[in-house]
C-alpha cells in the first residue's frame, strides 16, 4: 500500500442527519458544480439524455448525469474526446458527469465475453473485433471522456449467483481497484470511486469493505446489487455497507432504482443513485413524452 495521497477533487459537507434513520442531506462539491444529495442521476448513455437538450436538463435542476463508457468508447471514441477536450465540451453540458467503467455493459450486452485477471475480453458488436478491456484501458477512456466522477473497473457477477465465483470476483475487484488508481492520470479533476462487491454474502462484503476503504479514494459505490435479487437480501447488503463506509465520503448505490428503493436506501445512508428506468420508460411508453423524472 502506497502512502496516502490526496486523490480527491471533491468535498462532501454533511448538512443534516436524520435522527431516526441513517439518512443525511449533503452538499457534494465537484469540479463543475455543487450537487445536493441524496441525488438521483439520470442516465444519458450516449452523451445525450433521451431527447432533452443540456439546457432543458439544467433548467430541470439536474446537477449530475451519467454517460456510459462502453457506448461512448465505441462512438464517438476516446480519440475524439481527446480532440474536443472531453464530453462536457462535446455535448455542451456545464454541470457534472459521471462515467461507469464499461465493465457492466460488456458483461450484460455482449454475448461472448470472458473475464480473466487481465481484463474483460469480448467481441465488439460494432465491428466484430476482439477487444480487451483492462482496468488501465477503462481509466484511459474515462480520462479522455473527462467526467467529474469515474468508476473503477470491477469484476461484476450477478447477485443471483453464489459459490466461489463471487469470492473470486470480489478479490479481483480489489486488485483491479489498485490498478485503476495507478493508471488514473487526472486526479485533480476526476474522482475515482471504488466499487464494493461481495454479492449477497456478508462475510465477503465485509472483507471487501475492509480492504477498499484502506485505499484513499474520494468516494465509494456499492455494486453488484439491483440485479433481480430478493429485496430482503438487497437492503441487508446496503445497510451493511453504509455502516462500514466512512461518513465523510459519498456513497453511490449503483443501478437503484425505483422510487421506493430510492427512499429506503436514502434512509439507509446512500447519497447517490442511478437507473435507466425513467428514461427507458419515457421512451417506450410515449414517444412524445421526453421528460425524465426529476
Amino acid at each position: 500500500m502506497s502512502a496516502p495521497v490526496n486523490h480527491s477533487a471533491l468535498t462532501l459537507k454533511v448538512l443534516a442527519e436524520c435522527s431516526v434513520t441513517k439518512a443525511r442531506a449533503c452538499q457534494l462539491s465537484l469540479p463543475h458544480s455543487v450537487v445536493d444529495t441524496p441525488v438521483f442521476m439520470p442516465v444519458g448513455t450516449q452523451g445525450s439524455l433521451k431527447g432533452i437538450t443540456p439546457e432543458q436538463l439544467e433548467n430541470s435542476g439536474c446537477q449530475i448525469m451519467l454517460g456510459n463508457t462502453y457506448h461512448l468508447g465505441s462512438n464517438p471514441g476516446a480519440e475524439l474526446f481527446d480532440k474536443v477536450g472531453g464530453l462536457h465540451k462535446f455535448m455542451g453540458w456545464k454541470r457534472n458527469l459521471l462515467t461507469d467503467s464499461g465493465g457492466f455493459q460488456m458483461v450484460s450486452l455482449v454475448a461472448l465475453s470472458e473475464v480473466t485477471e487481465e481484463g474483460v475480453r469480448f467481441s465488439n458488436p460494432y465491428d466484430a473485433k476482439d477487444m480487451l478491456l483492462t482496468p488501465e484501458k477503462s481509466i484511459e477512456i474515462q480520462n479522455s471522456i473527462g467526467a467529474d466522477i469515474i468508476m473503477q473497473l470491477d469484476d461484476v457477477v450477478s447477485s443471483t449467483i453464489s459459490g466461489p465465483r463471487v469470492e473470486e470476483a470480489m478479490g479481483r475487484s480489489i486488485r483491479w481497484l489498485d490498478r485503476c488508481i495507478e493508471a488514473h492520470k487526472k486526479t485533480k479533476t476526476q474522482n475515482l470511486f471504488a466499487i464494493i462487491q461481495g454479492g449477497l454474502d456478508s462475510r465477503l462484503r465485509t472483507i471487501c469493505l475492509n480492504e477498499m476503504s484502506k485505499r484513499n479514494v474520494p468516494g465509494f459505490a456499492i455494486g453488484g446489487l439491483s440485479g433481480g435479487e430478493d429485496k430482503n437480501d438487497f437492503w441487508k447488503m446496503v445497510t451493511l455497507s453504509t455502516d462500514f463506509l466512512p461518513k465523510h465520503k459519498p456513497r453511490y448505490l449503483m443501478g437503484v432504482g425505483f422510487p421506493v428503493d430510492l427512499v429506503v436506501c436514502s434512509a439507509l445512508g446512500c447519497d447517490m443513485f442511478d437507473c435507466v428506468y425513467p428514461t427507458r420508460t419515457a421512451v417506450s411508453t410515449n414517444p412524445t413524452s421526453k421528460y425524465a423524472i426529476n
Partner: protein
Amino acid sequence: MKFSLRSVSQRGGRLATISELGRHGDKTVTTPMCLVFTQAGTIPHLTNDMVQKLGKHAYPVHLPLPLLLESHEILQKYSNGIGDFLALKHHLLYLSVQDSTIRPPEGFNEKSFVSLWGRSGRLNVDVDKFMSVQEAFKPDWYQALCDSDAGKVGSRKRAHKSVERTLAYLDRCLEKHKESEVLRHSCIFGSIEGGSVAEERELSAKETAKRPVAGFVLEGLDTNGPLDSVLPLCENGKKEIIQSILNELPDEKPRILHGPLDPANILAAVELGIDIFDSTYAFLVTERNAALTFCVSPDTESMASNVGKLQDSCNLQRNLYETSLTDKIFKDDFRPLVVGCQCYTCTNHTRAYVHHLVNVGELLGKTLLML
C-alpha cells in the same frame, strides 16, 4: 379574416397581410407564409419550450387531420377545442384534410365519403362527421372536405368526379358552417381539384371561386408525399396548370399549396401567385438526418462549400439545399451546422455532436436538426 395585398409583381407573385384573425386579436401575419407542420398534434421532435426558440416562426400551425381524427370523441368531451388540448392555443391553427408528407392510396374515396388514414387504419369521413370534427376541434382555419384522388394521369372521368364531389362537399360544409355557432370565428377554405385535366381544373377553380370561402387550397398537383417523389413544378406542365387555376381565382383571397417543396419550387410557386406553404420539407429533411444549409443571406457561410468533399453517392440535387449529418466527414468538425447562424442548434452545438447523435440514433439529433 382580411387578406390585404400590399404589392403584386408582374408575373403574379404577391406580398400581403392577413388580419382580423378572429380570437387572435390584433395579430397579423404576412404572406408568403409558412405553416408549421405538426404530426398528431405536436411539432415533430420539439417540446413546447423548444418551439418557443423558433420565435415568431412558430406562429401559424398546420394540423393535418388524419392522425388527429381518432381524438374526435375526446375533443367533443373536452369542449375547449384542439388548440387548448394541445397547448397550442396561442397559435393560429389551420386544419387540413390530408397529411402532405404522404400520398394516400388511390381508389378509396367514394361519393359520400373520403378515406383518411389514422393510427389504426382507414377511416371513412363524410360531411356530417367532418363538420362534427370541426365543431369539436374549433380551428381558426380549416380546409373543407375534398376528394383529391384524380385517378391516373389524364383520366378525365375520375378527375371530373373529384371536382364534382369536392364542390358538393364544400356546399354542404358551407351550409353547416353557416349554421354553426361554434365555428363563427373560423374560416373555411375551398379546394381546387381536377388532376391534370385542364378543363376540369378550370371548372373547379371557377365554381369554387363563386362560393363564400376565405381562401383556396390547390390540391392534387403531386406536391404531396415523400421527398423524392415530389416533382419540380416546372415539369409535366404543372406550372401551366397552376397558372390556369390562379387565373380563375380572385386576387383578394389567399392560396395555399401543400407539400414538401424545396426552395426552388417554393420560389416558383410564389412567383405564380401562391401565398401559403407548409414546412413538411423541413420536417422530411430532418427525418433523413440532414440539415437545411443553403445560403439565405450574404453573411451566412453556407455549408455548400463542403459539397465538393462529400462522396459521389450523394444525390447532387440534394446538396444544393441540405447536408446529411450522417457523413463521416463531420465526426470531428467542431463548427456550428451553419457558421454565422444564430439558431439554437448553431449557437449551442457542433456538427460533430449532431453527427454523433444521428449516428447512434439518439432522439436529440432530430430535435437539433428540426430547429
